């Protein structure tokens, strides 16, 4: 079965060229997702069997060019040059050949076998564009196969051509497309490079020569290390001097210009456009969706709709999951007699797994929505509309989408930053997302605000908290851009693609890819981390406290002084008291007490300290642990009147404490799940450490300020 010969095919093409749809049409459900090593660029690959071969397709990230500009480009290029696939399948958007073929010219230089899929051919035909395929193929030196991923046409021809090239029945030719002056210099450089045999093993000399003339970073760094560099360098200087004097331009510009004129020439020869007004509907839609007046309201309306869909609609499957896990818990309680094992299974493992899965519906729905926005072409428009605001804080237009998602949950919001191409934009956005107050913090706000503020101001306080979060997020973005990412400004040069209706298939696959990435990459660590925190909250347990409780319980039960209903009340109170004492005895309780000196200036005592430590498992846990410590039954958290009463009556707390506590909960590190996903997304310890220490520092400073100011005012 597995002795079939494997052909490796890399699929390269512009963003929005229908590359991924074509990939899906070829391999179907037979695909897997992972990361390219070392970077958070997704690597999707899939296998299609054909004519006795196993063809392994790798869907490279969509790029406009193969310069070493963005991580996507570096990945795509390195895959072709270093992994040397048997063939590159270049997907070209037939309705936008001029721009798409630029990448093709660069593929031609790479001297790797490649064929062209002229995709969206249905649109080409609809526009009555005539293409002389024979001539076009001759000009580009390889096969050009018309395809339509939407209708699944041309797939068989693609597969046949791949085999044909693999079996050497067809050999693509690599044609030069530079003016003689450049060719001459490329040849000279190429000859020098050929003296270094080690170098030749890595890349073809002609390609390196072109790249060196183009000031390409990666090839420069490579050749720079070689003894041959001195000769290369003087030849490069000489060439640029020559171009400067003859054309008044440097080699980089000339080469780019040559590529563009080659494309223009080839299209002029082989393609006849008959219909001038193509994508009319896109122009009309843009007049409505991104015009001066409606642009911003439409943006917020769409973001609101996405948010509602992800978090309101996502609540139903989350509730189902929760009831399934509760049901499992009940079954476990019935069958496991030993109290400790029962607690491990129910509160540890089951709630841990539940805690991992609970994020899944919102991740899937969010990425369904993002794939839809990206696929229709609105995503680029959203960035276009809001970019000015975001840019004034050093961010990218697309950061706004991740930040808004952060109001729901940081976990999917972190994952959504993958749409940001520049590293500094992406890391900065990741670092500020936690300050967007997530849904799990709301129960804490409601508890504290309800306890310390009158109903008339409660709404304003809640609003102020959210506003403070946004303010600190934007302020932090500015700070990061001015310090650690100083000078790393990335250009905002982005295509506004024509509006299209994405295929359901590709929406589904994209959603599924994100879900499986989350499950594969984050789930186990989240599970382990929540287990550790659970262990810390429940262990060690004191036998003495337990015995004491049982003794008292016994005394109450045996005493004749109380009627039965009062007895149950007393026992419940005793049991709550025991839970509180056990929690203080546990590891988390001890840490909470240990940090009291640090949080004293914020007006917190050890009880609030314990709840904050326990809250690292999940922000909503702050509420339940306060309830436990204050020996109160946790009945549904937020509407807990008796707990609010207790907090209000505690002598140690006042409004200033409440203000400081609200600020601290808003700003301090999010839950372990979010922190895990953050680390997965940055893949660098230095950023995770920065993120933890920065949010802790900011939380302390602002809480302290809030406490002091509020103390002065009351």
């Amino acid at each position: 079965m597995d002795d079939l010969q494997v052909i490796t095919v890399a699929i390269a093409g512009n963003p929005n060229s229908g590359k991924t749809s074509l990939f899906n049409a070829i391999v179907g459900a037979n695909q897997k997702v992972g990361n390219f090593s070392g970077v958070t660029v997704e690597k999707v690959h899939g296998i299609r069997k054909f004519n006795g071969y196993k063809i392994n397709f790798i869907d490279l990230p969509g790029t406009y060019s193969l310069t070493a500009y963005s991580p996507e480009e570096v990945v795509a290029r390195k895959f072709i040059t270093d992994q040397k696939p048997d063939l590159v399948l270049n997907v070209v958007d037939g309705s936008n050949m001029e721009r798409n073929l630029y990448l093709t010219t660069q593929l031609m230089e790479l001297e790797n076998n490649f064929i062209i899929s002229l995709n969206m051919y249905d649109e080409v035909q609809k526009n009555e564009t005539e293409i002389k395929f024979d001539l076009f193929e001759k000009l580009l030196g390889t096969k050009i196969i018309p395809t339509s991923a939407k209708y699944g046409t041309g797939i068989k021809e693609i597969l046949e051509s791949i085999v044909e090239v693999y079996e050497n029945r067809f050999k693509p030719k690599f044609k030069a497309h530079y003016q003689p002056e450049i060719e001459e210099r490329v040849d000279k450089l190429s000859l020098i490079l050929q003296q270094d045999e080690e170098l030749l093993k890595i890349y073809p000399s002609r390609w390196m020569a072109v790249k060196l003339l183009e000031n390409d970073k990666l090839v420069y760094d490579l050749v720079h290390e070689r003894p041959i560099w001195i000769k290369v360098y003087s030849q490069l200087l000489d060439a640029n001097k020559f171009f400067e004097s003859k054309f008044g331009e440097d080699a980089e510009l000339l080469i780019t210009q040559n590529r563009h004129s080659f494309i223009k020439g080839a299209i002029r020869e082989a393609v006849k456009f008959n219909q001038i007004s193509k994508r009319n509907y896109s122009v009309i839609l843009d007049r409505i969706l991104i015009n001066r007046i409606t642009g911003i309201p439409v943006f917020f309306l769409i973001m609101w709709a996405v948010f509602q869909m992800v978090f309101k609609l996502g609540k139903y499957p989350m509730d189902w999951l929760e009831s399934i896990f509760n049901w499992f818990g009940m079954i476990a309680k019935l069958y496991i007699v030993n109290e400790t094992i029962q607690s491990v299974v129910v509160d540890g493992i089951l709630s841990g797994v539940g805690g991992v899965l609970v994020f899944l519906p919102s991740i899937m729905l969010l990425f369904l929505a993002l794939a839809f926005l990206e696929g229709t072409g609105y995503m680029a428009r959203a960035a276009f509309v809001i970019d000015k605001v975001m840019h004034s804080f050093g961010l990218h237009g697309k950061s706004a989408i991740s930040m808004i998602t952060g109001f729901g949950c940081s976990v999917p919001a972190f994952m959504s930053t993958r749409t940001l191409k520049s590293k500094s934009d992406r890391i900065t956005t990741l670092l500020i997302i936690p300050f967007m107050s997530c849904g799990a913090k709301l129960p804490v706000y409601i508890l504290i605000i309800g306890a310390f503020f009158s109903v008339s101001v409660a709404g304003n306080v809640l609003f102020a908290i959210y506003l403070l979060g946004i303010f600190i997020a934007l302020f932090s973005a500015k700070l990061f851009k001015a310090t650690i990412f100083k000078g790393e400004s990335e250009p905002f040069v982005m295509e506004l693609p024509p509006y299209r209706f994405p295929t359901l298939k590709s929406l589904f696959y994209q959603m599924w890819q994100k879900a499986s990435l989350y499950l594969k990459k984050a789930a186990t660590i989240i599970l382990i981390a929540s287990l550790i925190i659970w262990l810390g909250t429940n262990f060690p347990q004191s036998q003495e406290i337990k015995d004491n409780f049982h003794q008292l319980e016994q005394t109450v039960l045996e005493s004749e002084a109380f009627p039965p209903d009062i007895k149950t009340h007393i026992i419940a109170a005793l049991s709550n008291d025991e839970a509180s004492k056990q929690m203080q005895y546990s590891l988390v309780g001890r840490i909470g007490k240990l940090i009291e000196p640090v949080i004293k200036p914020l007006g917190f005592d050890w009880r609030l300290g314990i709840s904050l430590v326990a809250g690292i498992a999940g922000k909503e846990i702050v509420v339940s642990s306060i309830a436990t410590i204050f020996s109160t039954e946790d009945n549904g958290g937020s509407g807990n009147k008796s707990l609010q009463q207790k907090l209000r009556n505690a002598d140690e707390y006042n409004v200033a404490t409440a203000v400081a506590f609200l600020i601290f909960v808003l700003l301090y590190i999010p839950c372990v799940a979010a922190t895990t996903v953050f680390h997965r997304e940055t893949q660098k310890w230095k950023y995770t450490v920065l993120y933890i220490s920065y949010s802790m520092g900011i939380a302390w400073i602002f809480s302290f300020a809030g406490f002091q100011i509020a103390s002065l005012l009351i």
Partner: protein
Amino acid sequence: MIIGIILKYIFRVNKVMFREEKQMETRLNLSDLKKGERAEIMSTEAKGDIRKRLLDMGLVKGQKLLVIRKAPLGDPLEIKLNGFYLSLRLDEAKYIFVKTLD
């Protein structure tokens, strides 16, 4: 030495004045264009990555373009060239010098 500094200063001022004059006369920024204006690129004077990006997207000398609109808040800019639509910030458009076409 003082004379040297003064000379240098005068020289610099002269250079600045000269350059401004030259720009005023012949060169126009892409960022200065209004909605609906057509233009041809004269030069792309960015450095490094930005330059590569602009060139890759086809913003090379001789390329004709049409300004479609500015974003609702005035920045970025949307232009049409080579049959596709591109948005770029005014900061980046400043690097592109154009002459208007009728």
